């Protein structure tokens, strides 16, 4: 798999000389999520999908924050950092800006990305740093044992809300579109083919890609997305978005345009789910080209070196106002 990748997002990342398999990306660490956790399916999908990128695995980095999903990097045989709560997008921004030859991934959850790390998330999205952010949304705090999260539904009874939550939840896709993210998608842990397809597109995108993955927590919020997985109901509830293809809800029908420069239409589509999951769009909401933060930073470095010449340290520290004392003091 030494082909030149047609993926602008990974343009500067060196490719592997020999094809790799899923096994090459499995670390020697025992996976320690709860039995039945949706994270297992996502891990398997990512391990199965990474070899198809054809990258050298030493040039792939996974950065995470804190939470169940943030254990993800330990299980991948790539470079990885399990950082602190909410800060993964900031850390990944520094890494991606300093190293164009890396494929940088952020793994985060609804609490990590949207509560404690909400500021870093929106700023990564607005800057459009070349990163792929996988947001595992299980609508609950798992690692701290079952408090409501910023995506939990209103009225939710949890350990910290015995009379029901009075917080209004974020819709992560709407939030990302509000920050004018250049790539925003949603997929389901249970639909491996769709998940893989979305991951492929996200990795190929140059800029910040946000992929919200609906993920089941069997311990503290089991069945949160069952209506989207149930064979009889799912097709009526899921609104499948594919660029250039028709979308139909009841009488309404339109051609989905993920490439529209204005995010308003994508935002409107993100609002189809009114919280009841009667209509839940999945797929790529928005995928547009915009210069990335890190590319522009590096091009300024190149421009400065080419117009002013490489830095001369002696000249720099001397400045323009020097004087010379030629004889030693008496």
């Amino acid at each position: 798999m030494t082909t030149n990748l047609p993926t602008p997002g990974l343009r500067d990342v060196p490719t592997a000389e020999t094809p790799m398999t899923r096994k090459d990306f499995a670390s020697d660490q025992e996976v320690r999520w709860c039995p039945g956790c949706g994270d297992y399916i996502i891990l398997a999908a990512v391990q199965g999908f990474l070899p198809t990128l054809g990258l050298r695995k030493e040039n792939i980095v996974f950065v995470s924050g804190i939470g169940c999903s943030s254990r993800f990097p330990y299980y991948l045989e790539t470079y990885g950092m399990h950082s602190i709560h909410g800060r993964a997008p900031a850390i990944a921004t520094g890494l991606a800006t300093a190293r164009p030859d890396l494929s940088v991934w952020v793994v985060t959850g609804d609490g990590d990305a949207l509560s404690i790390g909400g500021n870093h998330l929106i700023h990564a999205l607005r800057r459009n740093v070349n990163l792929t952010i996988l947001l595992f949304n299980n609508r609950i705090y798992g690692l701290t044992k079952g408090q409501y999260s910023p995506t939990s539904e209103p009225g939710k009874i949890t350990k910290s809300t015995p009379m029901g939550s009075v917080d209004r939840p974020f819709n992560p896709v709407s939030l990302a579109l509000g920050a004018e993210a250049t790539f925003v998608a949603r997929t389901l842990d249970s639909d491996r083919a769709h998940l893989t397809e979305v991951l492929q597109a996200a990795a190929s995108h140059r800029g910040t890609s946000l992929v919200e993955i609906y993920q089941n927590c069997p311990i503290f919020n089991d069945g949160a997305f069952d209506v989207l997985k149930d064979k009889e109901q799912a097709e009526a509830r899921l609104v499948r978005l594919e660029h250039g293809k028709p979308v139909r809800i009841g009488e309404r029908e339109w051609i989905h345009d993920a490439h529209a420069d204005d995010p308003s239409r994508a935002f409107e589509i993100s609002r189809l789910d009114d919280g009841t999951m009667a209509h839940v769009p999945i797929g790529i909401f928005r995928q547009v080209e915009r210069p990335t933060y890190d590319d522009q930073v590096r091009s300024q470095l190149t421009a400065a070196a080419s117009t002013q010449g490489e830095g001369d340290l002696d000249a720099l520290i001397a400045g323009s106002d020097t004087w010379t004392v030629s004889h030693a003091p008496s």
Partner: protein
Amino acid sequence: MAKQVKQLDRVIIRFAGDSGDGMQLTGDRFTHETAAFGNDLSTLPNFPAEIRAPAGTLPGVSSFQLHFADHDILTPGDAPDVLVAMNPAALRANTKDLAAGATIIVDTHDFTARNLTRAGYTANPLEDGSLDKFSLHSVDLTALTVEAIKDFGLTRKDAGRTKNMFALGLLSWLYGRPVESTEAYLTKRFASKPDIRDANLAAFRAGWNFGETTEGFAVSYEVKPAPMRAGTYRNITGNLALSYGLVAASVRSRLPLFLGAYPITPASDILHELSKHKRFGVVTFQAEDEIAGIGAALGASFGGSLGVTTTSGPGIALKSETIGLAVSLELPLIVVDVQRGGPSTGLPTKTEQSDLLQAMFGRNGEAPVAIVAPQSPGDCFDAAVEAARIAVTYRTPVMLLSDGYLANGSEPWQLPDLDTLPTIDPCFATAANHETEVGDREFWPYKRDPETLARPWAIPGTPDLEHRVGGLEKADGHGNISYDPTNHDLMVRTRQAKIDRIADSIGPLEVDDPSGQARLLVLGWGSTYGPIGAACRRLRRHGLDVAQAHLRHLNPFPSNLGEVLRRYDRVVVPEMNLGQLGLLLRAKYLVDVIGYNQVRGLPFTATELEAVFTTTIEELHR
């Protein structure tokens, strides 16, 4: 008629006016002229946190103090010999600081009843005799300036704004300063606005000529150049020297410099400065907050950059969790804290040394970091290089504790010979470093260098060294997550031992005790070096024996510090806090050090320290 020229060995001048009067610029230009003339000098800018406080009020007064001499000096001086006051508030705010018999040059233009009241005067001090003990020059500088530049077609307001250049011209004449650098500066600064440029030049020359021709100033002064070591010099502020030190460390280590920062007084100038040096491959990332600033720097360090974050005390508070992560990851990281008055927002533009304990202990868990402090504006260069050396060699965060006085103060600085800077070798890991029982080669990210206890730094992109790091406790050696009690105890002690080992790479603390007879040791750290040194010189001139030592490394301390402390009958530790170094010394060495502590937002004066040291010596001999 040629005027009389009087010889002086040193002068302290303070320029004071409204924060919009351009006093910082005036002081800065006078400093450049003085540096070019070859005096030794030291400066102290002092300005309010408000960008434009209400005009004519005491809170709005901005000042710039400059001490220059024909000999080696260490401080910006205690009591000014000359005050240039541009309005009543500037006069009132500064008169109490003046030396007896000082010269006051006042712009009388704004001495209206309304402005006098606004400044808190009940009578006009220029007329009521309250300034009789000074040599008062009341001059309508504004009117003279407006008259001098009336041909340039400026509005009255714009014309009035050039009065600072008139004042600069007058002072430049009074002290025989070379004017070329100011003329060149004005020509370049206002190149795109010829009328403003010409007006400023004209005001500057008019000020000079006014001094030369008016009978009000009968005498001008000469302060001869100071003998200095042979070499090339420039004038430099602490923030600039610190920025250059970081660039030099980057060049020296061949690590690209990555600065992640959020604007904060008085550290922002480092961000501004480094953003100019893209041709050196320097990346500056203005983050969304303090936490993202250090986060991005740590991410860049993980990728093989020299990661740096710059801030002041409140920013350190926000960065604490990430510093702890860096301690756990054991990656190089430089954290610059330009200290200011605290707690909370405190005194943003004033200086203090009250973040030492925050630097030392301000994290959860046992999270030791190295701490380095510069002692003068120019020394910020060497301190930054030293911070980088420790960070890279020992794979650790290093706290670099500057302060507001060092940041904005300036002094002549001999350009260093870059070949003599310490070696900074990143020594990246490139191959497996461990053999398993069955003979497999593996990479163990926490297998340490036996001498330094530093772990290998394997950066992404290095084949076969893929590994995961994180904030969870790691097993010694292979680095996988471990909750084992004994392992945790070992790792906590090992991280501390690694920081302690840094002491092996720094020289012993040197004590300046010229007579060898001193019973009093004065020990300081950071920006107090100047006033402590100046006070010790005065004592010695009076025949008293005093020893002085100054700490560059606050963690770990130099190996001989305990022995030095015990050698003296009395140890005084002056600090601009309530005794933070004193606390550490007492805890570590069980030595009864005596603190001298002031937190006024201003550097110590040599005079007050002289009195403290003298009293201490008298007590010793009682």
